[in-house]
């Protein structure tokens, strides 16, 4: 038989795509439960106001209305607030300010979109009609949108007891050593920069259905989540006070998450709790405007970065101060983003010997901010890689040479950075060299000259980055403030005739897990790819799991599968030894076959599994029947993907429009299971990175109204905005997980933004531009060109 290879390394087509592209996915909004009612959330249109009164009488009396709930019923039932999953301590050792985040606003509203009431009716239309009849009296308070305004003396206070609107004032690194290095530095280079606020905008808006079974007293929540077990834990234990065995959380097909569907949201608790009160299912589906006003936003950091250098261009020390916008409340992982997911990456790919970073997190009257594709690492990467180009320009050194000179060398791994992380592997010279070649860096001056002849400004930029994913050792993250473990779980069930179902605690919302994991199982157990099914997204089916984020599914979830398969193989060897009358030590397993060493005796895994489930001839005194194993895997370290991204742009100097001409990514993501899926993941990430660099911006006005609250004003990247994205890989293996994998989900969004901006700044080099904050919109570019008017040579 000449079977097509479908194991590790094969670009197998995604088996889930037939379902998705033919409209046969099963998303939360596709689910309708018998006798379900529909919920509409009444949200604040005020950024900051005291609630004087809520009159629900007219809404309750409206046609079809089943119930109207406000904070009154929530408080009567003593429900908890939305919990935060990560606790940061300030420099002085005090824990972060953690104000109550009520699931329906109580006393005050703190951002436009803050939920105030839920109206539940027979139809969605009736609920919407009735919601308009709610009479809410407000007393407006001064509102704050920007972090700078939030910490201004005399600023309006958003939460009682939170002075200066400051959640925490944290630091990492050795300030004394860094200050000393600055004092003796040959020169220093300083850069102020902003990481623009983004709205994740998954294709599928959030939705949730709560259901209650009065006989069993069981609750079920169907929700658009990246991690159903985490939702069960957070909502059950902290908000609704339901034990795990009474609460099932199902995350069916989910149409994109990018981080925004990690978090526990108020609406999930509202529909679940309402279902119990009303004894009928309650469904809520977000519309797009609501998504802009209620999905956690991303980024929004203001930073100052300063590098101390010696006379040869060697980095001596880095000093960074960041103010991070938390929004109005703490979302699930918000405090971790600017701190342990960002400041710990400030060494980047460089051997900077001393680093000190301060992060002040502040509340504003904006939608809560949390992890979004990359989560903290895009922020540190943008800061470092912009700083590299500014340093190179100011000390008169080639920007590639500057990077190469300061790289952590390939033989220095494991490498301990001055900011907590220890990188296990990497080879930054190689990814850089490979990317320069793929992008024809050396041929750029000729291309620039040609573009100039056409009247266009051409620029090229690169970024060399490392990031941390595969989050992470539970013990370490616990020390850093995580309130949960971060292991992963796999259950591998070999069926009697040898087909396999794997149950994973990770969740696929576009990543292609049903294919990648099936390849992994097929490869390791030697069964056919088509005979492996992957099950995820249901707390009643999966033993446990921490979900999918931080590019962890393969590095952590896949490693758990390997552990479970190791147990399957070990048990299979015992069965095989019995069947073939050999010693267990003499049984070898390869390519789906158990064989007795040195003989031609062989049993396939299907024969072994049949024997395990039909144990007529079976070592029943030694082992149990069946062939199914569960493994929990807790990683020893983060994984550290890295690489080099190169972007080439042309600018229309009359309009300021930037066109991305070429984009080259050469990434080290460790071992690759499915190259096609990795390429797609990186291209998708780069698309979002180009989006951040050139197009996307969540703009609040000074009154804290979200101006870009729809696609009419918020510019998502479209196919036409993107060039061909060339993806290559250079591999060093992760040294501490069994597959040697690192993760590929976020590298595109992490490495690309500074490459784009570096290219834009390079294109404008004749205009004396030092830095451009994202997004580099046509208006912004034109303003630069206009302010530094050079003769328009083409005219």
């Amino acid at each position, binding site marked *: 038989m000449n079977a097509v290879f479908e194991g590790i390394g094969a670009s197998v087509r995604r088996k889930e795509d037939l379902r998705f592209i033919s409209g046969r996915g099963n998303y939360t909004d596709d689910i309708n439960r018998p006798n379900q009612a529909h919920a509409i959330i009444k949200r604040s249109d005020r950024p900051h106001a005291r609630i004087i009164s809520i009159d629900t009488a007219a809404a309750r009396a409206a046609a079809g209305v089943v119930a109207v709930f406000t904070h009154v019923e929530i408080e009567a039932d003593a429900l908890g607030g939305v919990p935060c999953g990560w606790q940061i301590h300030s420099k002085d050792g005090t824990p972060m300010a953690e104000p109550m985040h009520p699931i329906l606003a109580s006393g005050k509203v703190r951002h436009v979109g803050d939920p105030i009431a839920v109206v539940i009716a027979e139809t969605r*239309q009736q609920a*919407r*009609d009735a919601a308009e009849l709610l009479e809410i009296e407000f007393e407006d308070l001064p509102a704050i949108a920007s972090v700078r305004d939030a910490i201004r003396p005399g600023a309006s206070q958003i939460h009682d007891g939170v002075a200066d609107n400051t959640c925490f004032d944290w630091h990492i690194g050795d300030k004394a050593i860094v200050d000393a290095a600055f004092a003796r530095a040959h020169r220093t280079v300083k850069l102020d920069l902003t990481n623009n606020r983004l709205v994740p905008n998954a294709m599928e808006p959030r939705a949730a259905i709560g259901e209650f079974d009065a006989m069993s007293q069981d609750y079920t929540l169907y929700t658009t989540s990246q991690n159903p077990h985490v939702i069960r834990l957070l909502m059950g234990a902290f908000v609704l006070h339901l034990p795990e065995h009474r609460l099932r959380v199902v995350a069916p097909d989910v149409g994109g998450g990018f981080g925004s569907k990690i978090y526990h949201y108020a609406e999930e608790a509202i529909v679940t709790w309402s279902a119990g009160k009303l004894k009928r299912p309650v469904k809520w589906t977000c519309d797009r*405007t609501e998504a802009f006003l209620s999905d956690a936003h991303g980024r929004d950091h203001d930073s100052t970065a300063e590098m101390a250098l010696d006379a040869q261009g060697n980095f001596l020390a880095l000093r960074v101060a960041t103010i991070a916008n938390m929004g109005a409340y703490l979302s699930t992982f918000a405090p971790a983003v600017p701190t342990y997911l960002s400041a710990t990456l400030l060494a980047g790919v460089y051997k900077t010997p001393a680093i000190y970073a301060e992060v002040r997190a502040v509340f504003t009257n904006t939608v809560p901010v949390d992890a979004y594709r990359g989560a903290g690492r895009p922020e540190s990467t943008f800061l470092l890689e912009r700083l590299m180009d500014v340093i190179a320009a100011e000390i008169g050194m080639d920007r590639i040479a500057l990077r190469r000179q300061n790289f952590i060398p390939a033989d220095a791994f494991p490498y301990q950075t001055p900011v907590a992380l220890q990188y296990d592997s990497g080879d930054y010279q190689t990814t850089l060299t490979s990317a320069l070649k793929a992008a024809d860096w050396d041929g750029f001056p000729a291309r620039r000259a040609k573009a100039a002849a056409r009247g266009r400004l051409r620029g090229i930029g690169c970024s060399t980055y490392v990031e941390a994913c595969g989050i992470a050792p539970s013990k370490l993250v616990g020390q850093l403030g995580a309130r949960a473990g971060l292991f992963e779980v796999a259950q591998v069930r070999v069926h009697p005739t040898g087909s396999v179902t794997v149950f994973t605690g990770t969740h696929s919302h576009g990543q292609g897990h049903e294919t990648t994991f099936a390849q992994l199982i097929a490869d390791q157990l030697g069964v056919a790819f088509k005979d492996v099914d992957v099950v995820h997204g249901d707390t009643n089916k999966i033993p446990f799991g921490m979900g999918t984020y931080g590019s962890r599914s393969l590095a952590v979830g896949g490693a758990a599968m390997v552990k479970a398969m190791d147990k399957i193989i070990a048990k299979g060897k015992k069965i095989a030894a019995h069947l073939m009358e050999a010693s267990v030590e003499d049984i070898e397993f390869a390519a789906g076959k158990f064989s007795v060493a040195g003989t031609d005796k062989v049993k396939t895994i299907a024969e072994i599994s049949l024997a395990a489930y039909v144990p007529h001839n079976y070592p029943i005194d030694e082992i149990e029947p069946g062939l199914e194993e569960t493994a929990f895997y807790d990683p020893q370290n983060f994984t550290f993907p890295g690489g080099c991204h190169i972007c080439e742009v042309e600018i229309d100097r*009359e*309009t300021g*429009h930037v066109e991305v001409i070429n984009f080259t990514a050469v990434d080290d993501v460790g071992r690759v299971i499915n190259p096609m899926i990795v390429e797609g993941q990186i291209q998708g990430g780069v698309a979002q990175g180009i989006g951040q660099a050139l*197009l996307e*911006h969540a*703009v609040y006005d000074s009154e804290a109204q979200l*101006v*870009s609250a729809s*696609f*009419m*004003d*918020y*510019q*998502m990247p479209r196919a036409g905005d993107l060039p061909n994205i060339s993806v290559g890989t250079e591999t060093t293996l992760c040294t501490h997980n069994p597959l040697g994998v690192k993760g590929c989900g976020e590298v595109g969004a992490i490495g690309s933004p500074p490459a784009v901006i570096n290219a834009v700044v390079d294109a404008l080099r004749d205009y004396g531009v030092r830095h451009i904050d994202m997004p580099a*919109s*046509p*208006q912004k570019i*034109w*303003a630069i060109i*206009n302010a530094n008017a050079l003769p328009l040579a083409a*005219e």
Partner: protein
Amino acid sequence: MYDFAYEKPSSLADAVASLKANLDSKALAGGQTFIPVLKQRLNKPSVVVDLAKLNLKGITVTPTTVTIGAMTTHGEIALSADIQKTLPALAHMASMIGDWQVRHRGTMGGSLANNDPSACYPSALLALDGTITTDRRTIKAEDFFQGMFTTALEDGELITSVSFPVPEKAAYTKFRNPASRYAMVGVFVAKFAAGVRVAITGASQSGVFRHTAFEHALSAHFAADAIKDIVTPANGLNSDIHASAPYRAHLIGVMTKRAVIEALS
């Protein structure tokens, strides 16, 4: 959306009667603006009168005039071989509206009646000195547009067709709003024997307008260079997160220059 009654009359007279009879009634053409507005509950009509069965589709092209039925879609205009040959600037304009889904539903009559200040067609109608025919009269372009989202149409008056004189040369250039892809600045330049007309959409607080300074210069000398020293004042122009008024003023010059070059090519 809010509940409303829906009617789909099969004669123009019935449609007009229906619109007249019902307070807060609205006509539905292609619905590419109106239906999103309804879905967001920004409009609460009592009756929606669907114009789809009124036989208002069709394109008639003579050497001097292009006449387009009000319910003709952008897609039909963009793909019409006759328009591509006789008035290619108009076909090109239609091809740049929205995406294919929008172009297959959205109509010229609907767009003109709505008079969105960022819509494309108003600039064509004004620059080409076109004429609107309604169920009761004809209206010259100059008289039709009366500020953003405001036209000379009376309550219940329906556009039946639009006719455009064929110019010697014409072109439309559009600098899209980066997010919405509507015109942030759209410029239609039309050269007739009697002179050049330049209409700008997307830029002004009061909707489409003629750029008389450019028209004088280009009528005297139809070349890109003719307008290079004319500064468009920024006052009265829109300013938003995507473009300040001075930037729009600048873009008007750039896009007009490009339209002239395209018209000459």
